[in-house]
């Protein structure tokens, strides 16, 4: 909450502008390029200092690619990445190195992201070794281990001696080592059991408060995203369909895709038992990112699809409330909504009636 109260004039920590990443699809003996995967397409986002920006979407929506572009593990096809006021889009490795100290990443799988042949002490001290900092590494590592809730005595143990949750804590300690400004958390709790997941989420929140960290938090889990994020971007097929303050977006999503995502999450209630809400079930599957649909990428599955409009004209992100944008021609008038109501967009023009400005009463 602290974030939205910050003066808007303050420069964001991270800015990406019209960011696009295409991966070539190669085929045949001569590896000829047969097409491109549109992994990230024209994404513009800002991450403010001290906030958590959640990026949510289904597999293949480009959320992890976006994160990797932000920390420059990938170089964008086009667009600009600015970190702390500096354009880092095309910096060389050498020039990037000092900036890398300020941005760290925590990965999804605590089993494959820790070297099994190195002790915990070595793993957490590695950033110091790379950046040639810190005299008293052992003491510092032990402090870090303690801070993330591990026993500092376990300095000489190996990853296999730890449970999944403890391993993720090791990953957090490593990310904290160089006192970064930004930590990208790429599905950090997806591989963990619920009871442990809550421990890690609470830890991340505490650390954020203590060290004034900025997070980009990637997840496919809308409940986790809601719990941790100040602002949220919803991605689909490489594009941001909706972005806004967490509360605003969950209380009244404007994009039909966000609405479908929200209603698809199975819910449990502490007191209400098993009340069944009407679920908006989207038909079909996510189209291939090699051949994304024209205009609005969501139109092939959208319950509000209007022929001749949504498949012709690309909707741009436009504001709906304070700090809340969505890219849709027929945004949701209210929420919650039944599947049937959703399918009848207010003010939709008929297919053979391209301009009907006054027919508001649909």
């Amino acid at each position, binding site marked *: 909450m602290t974030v939205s109260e910050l003066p808007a004039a303050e420069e964001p920590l991270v800015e990406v502008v019209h960011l696009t990443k295409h991966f070539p699809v190669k085929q045949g003996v001569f590896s000829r390029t047969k097409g491109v995967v549109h992994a990230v397409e024209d994404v513009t986002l800002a991450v403010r200092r001290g906030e958590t920006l959640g990026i949510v979407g289904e597999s293949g929506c480009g959320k992890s690619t976006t994160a990797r572009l932000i920390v420059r593990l990938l170089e964008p096809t086009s667009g600009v990445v600015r970190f702390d006021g500096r354009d880092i889009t095309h910096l060389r490795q050498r020039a990037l190195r000092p900036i890398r100290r300020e941005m760290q990443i925590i990965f999804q799988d605590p089993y494959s992201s820790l070297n099994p042949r190195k002790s915990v002490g070595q793993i957490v001290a590695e950033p110091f070794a790379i950046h040639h900092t810190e005299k008293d590494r052992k003491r510092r590592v032990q402090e870090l281990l303690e801070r993330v809730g591990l026993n500092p005595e376990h300095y000489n143990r190996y990853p296999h001696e730890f449970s999944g949750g403890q391993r993720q804590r090791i990953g957090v300690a490593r990310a904290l080592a160089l006192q970064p400004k930004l930590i990208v958390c790429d599905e950090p709790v997806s591989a963990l059991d619920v009871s442990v997941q*809550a421990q890690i989420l609470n830890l991340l929140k505490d650390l954020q408060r203590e060290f004034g960290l900025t997070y980009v938090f990637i997840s496919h*889990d809308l409940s986790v995203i809601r719990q941790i994020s100040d602002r949220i971007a919803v991605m689909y097929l490489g594009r941001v369909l909706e972005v806004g303050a967490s509360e605003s977006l969950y209380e009244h999503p404007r994009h039909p895709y966000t609405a479908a995502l929200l209603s698809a999450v*199975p819910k449990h209630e502490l007191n209400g*038992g098993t009340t069944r809400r009407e679920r908006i079930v989207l038909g079909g599957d996510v189209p291939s990112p090699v051949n994304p649909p024209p205009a609005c990428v969501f139109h092939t599955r959208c319950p509000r699809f209007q022929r001749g409009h949504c498949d012709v004209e690309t909707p741009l992100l436009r504001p709906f409330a304070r700090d809340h944008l969505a890219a849709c021609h027929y945004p949701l008038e209210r929420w919650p909504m039944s599947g049937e109501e959703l399918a009848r967009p207010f003010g939709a023009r008929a297919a053979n009636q391209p301009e009907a400005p006054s027919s508001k009463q649909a």
Partner: protein
Amino acid sequence: MSGAPRSGPVLLEVRDLSVRFRTRDGIVHAVSNLSFTLRRGETLGVVGESGSGKSVSSLAIMGLLNRAYADVEGEILFEGTDLLKLPPDKLREVRGRDISMIFQDPFASLHPMYRVGAQIAEAVRVHEDVSKREAWERAVELLAAVGIPNARSRARDYPHQFSGGMRQRAMIAMALVHNPDVLIADEPTTALDVTVQAQILELIDKVKREFDIGVILITHDLGVVAETATHVMVMYAGRAMEYGPAHEVFSAAQHPYTWGLLESMPTVEKRLDVLVPIEGSPPSLLRPPPGCPFHPRCRYRFEPCDKVRPPLAPVPGGHLDACHLAPERKREVWSTRIAAELGVTA
């Protein structure tokens, strides 16, 4: 509303099931003294974290555990016959025909080199003496029934041409080949995206109604259970902690472990001030703790918990739970917790 109607005939009754694995490190007590029943028309949600024994118990029901390493004790009664006493050839007749199963990863469950339709047709011919042509027709029918568009042409596709959701649909079609009485779904939606998960859960529910079968749905996601199950069993360290009709378990959860699960789960409904995690991690099943297996992590443990194992016994509400806490104390704790959750003072 009190007590879901348990009118359907009993399909499956598990009594005192224990599974132990002999390993180099010692004996793993994967499942201990598990008992439950499944009736026609019911969906039993089995919830638990990794290592709670939920998958192992379903593998035991399917007779898929290698008895050379696993000791299986107890009774698994399917329409009165104990599956554990059946010779392998008789068990094979039951498995896949009367009881069938779908798994978490639909890609690993389909052979990559055979057409999807051919794999389903093969399943038809395992238990039925029909021509290849008839079996193929049946496969196409089933693919259409589980919502694969253009089933006739898609049946000729290979698994890699199917999306994750379509593969899971194909697995469900294969499981339905012989009109089973019981369908065991082991984490059927865990590998899928939420919007596809919603489609598959809906399909399983539809299949249950249309084929009038009993479903055992194994999952780590309480939300999935809350939306689809008629009955719930919460497992921890190989044991049932709480068991009963879903609306009772969710409206009046009795076991501190169930409370912990409910509270540690973030929800899309609102942002909670704090998540209340369950501290610590699950015990090693090589040396399960004495007494209640949950006591080392339980906030409410008291004198007998580390010595005496509480039996799974009926509580005043009607369902079963395994905890020493007095019912009045639980009611008190639960109501204050709900109050905290709703932001009102009790």
